[in-house]
């Protein structure tokens, strides 16, 4: 979950990372009660990058200009996102700008410290000077000093920058973050440092054990959808599943095709899609109902996800043939088949049918014959071999054409 700049700065303030005096602006008229002396910077609070170039950052000298600028920024979408709030912040005269970040590196399987002597929005220039230190063992400040030296810093700046990095690292670990970034870190002519812009990404798996982060993000959000998505991510997989709410069920309305694909497992889904493309077919929507290995897993839960998935994918009017590819192990395959049989019964009892489509079930399960038995009265072709299922699917697509 990405935090907004002003939320990130609230965390910086808690860690004693220096930030400028600032004020949250919920509506343009708030600027009449501004407590920060002019000139100030107004910044659009959106998650997307590149807001400066897009016109989401403006310098203003007085209230009249500020209100007008705020109105403009509130109505300016950046990568499709409108700001809910703005941040009004004191202007800072930086002599130099650095880039600093703490991030987890999958290759090293360790957090890494990143720093560049060039900060700001010219990504190529920043990257060119980028230095890296892997935090191999337990963190100690020498890792931060090591990076400061690699960056080519001298004198008092070594300690000043290391102190900031140390606090960033503490924040990173305390709050289970994926990323803490300060860009730019302003350096004044006297060698004072200041976090001018910051980015914090919380880890979605860890968020449920950080109620303070959830609170920080929810207390300021007026948008119901935002609040619900945060509430969503602040619950464990277990709680979500218990409530019959399966966040992994994201339907991908894929392409301009006519074949729906439903699988359990991301890799299996990719393989199935590959085979459809190779056979000259085109997917319409596709859906991964998740592996059976969920913490809250019980056979019932996977059945519920299949039921919900069927409902979702058959809403797509473009689906003429639905291919379901399941590996049901320990989750009795016959129970999954029963879910499909129930689906057809429900359909039959409805006076007005939704869109008409054909179904192919490819099932790998020790319960295969029992599954076959329970589906014998349904218009479902059930096969065990994957290539054969693809062949049958393509046959149905062609017969409908």
């Amino acid at each position: 979950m990405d935090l907004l700049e002003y939320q990130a700065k609230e965390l910086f303030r808690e860690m004693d990372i220096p930030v400028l005096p600032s004020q949250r602006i919920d509506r343009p008229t708030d600027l009449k009660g501004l407590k920060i002396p002019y000139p100030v910077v107004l910044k659009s609070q959106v998650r997307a990058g590149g807001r400066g170039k897009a016109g989401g950052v403006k310098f203003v000298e007085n209230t009249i200009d500020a209100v007008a600028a705020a109105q403009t920024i509130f109505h300016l979408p950046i990568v499709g996102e409108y700001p809910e709030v703005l941040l009004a912040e004191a202007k800072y005269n930086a002599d130099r700008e650095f880039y600093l970040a703490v991030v987890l590196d999958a290759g090293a399987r360790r957090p890494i410290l990143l720093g560049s002597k060039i900060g700001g929005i010219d990504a190529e220039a920043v990257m060119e000077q980028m230095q890296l230190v892997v935090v191999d063992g337990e963190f100690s400040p020498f890792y931060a000093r090591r990076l400061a030296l690699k960056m080519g810093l001298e004198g008092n700046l070594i300690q000043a920058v290391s102190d900031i990095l140390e606090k960033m690292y503490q924040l990173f670990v305390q709050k289970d973050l994926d990323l803490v970034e300060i860009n730019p870190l302003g350096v004044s002519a006297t060698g004072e440092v200041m976090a001018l812009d910051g980015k914090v990404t919380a880890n979605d798996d860890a968020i449920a054990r950080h109620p303070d982060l959830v609170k920080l993000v929810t207390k300021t959000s007026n948008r119901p959808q935002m609040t619900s998505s945060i509430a969503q991510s602040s619950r464990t997989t277990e709680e979500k599943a218990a409530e019959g709410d399966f966040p992994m069920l994201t339907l991908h309305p894929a392409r301009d095709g006519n074949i729906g694909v439903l699988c359990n497992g991301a890799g299996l889904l990719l393989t199935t899609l590959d085979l459809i493309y190779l056979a000259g077919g085109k997917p319409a929507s596709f859906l991964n109902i998740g592996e059976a290995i969920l913490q809250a897993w019980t056979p019932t839960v996977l059945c519920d996800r299949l039921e919900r998935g069927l409902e979702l994918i058959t809403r797509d009017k473009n689906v003429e043939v639905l291919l379901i590819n399941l590996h049901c192990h320990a989750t009795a395959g016959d129970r999954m088949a029963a879910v499909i049989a129930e689906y057809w019964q429900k359909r039959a009892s409805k006076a007005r049918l939704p869109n008409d489509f054909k179904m192919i079930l490819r099932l790998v399960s020790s319960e295969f014959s029992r599954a076959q038995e329970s589906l014998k009265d349904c218009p479902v072709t059930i096969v065990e071999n994957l290539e054969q299922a693809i062949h049958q699917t393509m046959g149905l697509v062609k017969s409908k054409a």
Partner: protein
Amino acid sequence: MNFDPDTKVLVQGIVEPLGSVHAALMKEYGTNIVAGVSPGYGGQEIHGIPVFDLVEQAIPVMGAIDTSIIFVPPYQLLDAALEAIAAGIRQIIIVTTGIPPLDMVQLVRQAEATDTLVVGPNCPGIIVPGKIMLGTHPGHLYLPGSVGVISCTGTLTYEIAYELTQAGIGQSIVVGMGSDAIVGSSFSQWLQMLDEDEHTEAIVIVGETGGNGAEENAAHYIAEAIDKPAIAYLAGQHTPQEKRRGHAATLIASKLSVKEGLTETDDWGAERKIQAFKQHKIPLADRPSTLVKLVKKALSAKKK
């Protein structure tokens, strides 16, 4: 690597729904499960397996334990794994999903310091067909033989094993490493182990075109250090992919705002991965049935 049928196995989180179901299935497959651990359930029995409150209580009763398989909820995982290491267990398999990556960093540091093999999290685990099953592999799909399979996918691992078995190609070992951002053991570690394993004649790598750079690194490692024939299958070679798939293994570093101006897409470049295998002349399949053919070819070439 010690995966003999007599290796002693412990299940942590045996009273969890998943732990209980799979403990029974592993036992049924012939795995020597000597104990379970779930705090508060000490003294009970599940599927005829004695349950203890602490790992260290099981050892005086059962003798030294080789492997622990962990099913505890995600926020209890780090503690459970450290408890197993402290009790002298040197092989750990983590089935649990949804573990905070920084917990894995702590675990990986401790595992390296103690020379402990960690597989997972969020993984099917290990199966040596006909001998031992450690995790959630559907045993009936596997066949004893000489092909080692290393995969970073979930149900697709079962699919590949099933396809090999259907074609009469047996497996010496199948390892599902998991696909989270931080995993306990990597392609290169397993490639090295299977290269030294006397029961393995050929090695199959199963991965995806999306996600992180794990498969690409595997290709370079095979070229550098592996003597046995290796064959790869990557899912997703014909599927146009969105920026981020629903896999935890998205490249975290791509979150850096500074990179936004540099990279057009977040896609690690399916092309780059495919090129890595081609460059080193490692046979690469684009569908499971082709993989089966390439494996057969590699095995018959070895016999000559």
